[in-house]
């Protein structure tokens, strides 16, 4: 019995020593080599502190477009605004019927055109789901610095 225990102990110490040597090799592969990304410059095996949650700006004046065919950004929050086959909350203010009364921007005539360019009497199904093109804005700074400038006609 005692001989068996001695043999087991010896085998155990041998294994632990060999395991340690492989561990140090694994740690060296984790270095990010100084390459920065959207995660910052943290090592692969560390967890960086999470950023602050961004909130959508509740209501502000309309935002100018950055390029000519840009679907204008939504300058207000759209929490729980239903856009479904039953109801389109966006159109309850932005359709030609109600825009004047509500003081909202009218949807452009492009929204009434079919794919072939023929003009329909109501909003074209291909333009019905507003939020596929028009997005709300969170109160956040750009992720990547850039020096994009609008064309002169839009500045």
């Amino acid at each position, binding site marked *: 019995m005692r001989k068996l225990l001695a043999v087991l102990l010896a085998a155990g110490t041998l294994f632990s020593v060999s395991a340690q040597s492989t561990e140090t090799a694994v740690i060296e592969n984790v270095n990010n080599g100084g390459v920065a990304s959207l995660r910052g410059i943290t090592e692969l095996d560390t967890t960086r502190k999470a950023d602050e949650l961004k909130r959508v700006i509740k*209501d502000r004046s309309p935002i100018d477009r950055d390029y000519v065919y840009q679907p204008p950004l939504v300058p207000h929050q759209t929490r729980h605004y*239903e856009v479904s086959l*039953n109801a389109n909350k966006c159109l*309850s203010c932005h359709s030609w019927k109600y825009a004047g009364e509500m*003081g909202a921007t009218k949807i452009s005539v492009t929204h009434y055109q079919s794919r072939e360019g023929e003009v329909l009497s109501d909003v074209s199904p291909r333009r019905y789901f507003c939020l596929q093109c028009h997005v709300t804005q969170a109160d956040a700074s750009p992720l990547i610095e850039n020096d994009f400038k609008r064309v002169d006609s839009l500045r």
Partner: protein
Amino acid sequence: MKLILNFWRKLTTPSKAAVGTVLAMGFLGGIIFWGAFNMGMEATNTEEFCSACHAPILKELKETIHYSNRSGVRAICSDCHVPHKWTDKIVRKVQASNEIVAFLMGKISTQEKFEARRKHLAVREWQRMKENDSQECRNCHNFEFMDFSEQGPRSRKQHSTALASGEKTCVDCHKGIAHQLPDMSDVPGW
């Protein structure tokens, strides 16, 4: 029948107990009865009770601001659908017998049946709220104490004109604030 006559005789003959004893029993009994009655009423006003039959509606509610929001101040089913005044509350509870009949008849027992009936149910509630000037909304959202300087430009504009003049009531614009909407094709404003 004999039991009733016996009971009536007991009630109309003097008791051997002290006046105080009889009065105290009546007083305590009244308190316990009133408390139990209203506790039972409030139990039928809880989210758990309503969602036992109206589970799909509670699921829809979970994404809305009245369910979960920044401050945690929220509204449950009865806050909007059951009047707060006691007399109107009793009238609504008596009317709820209609809903028990509908449950037994299985009027919204499947999702499809519910979707088909959604418009009918919604129109009834909108009409009720329009008739009582959105009283249930005003139970929490008191117009007299609305701070327009804290509101966004759109809210400020609408609340200071249509709502202030009495031309519109809360539910006229805030349909769908808590539940998904039915087919809105013939609803004014949509």
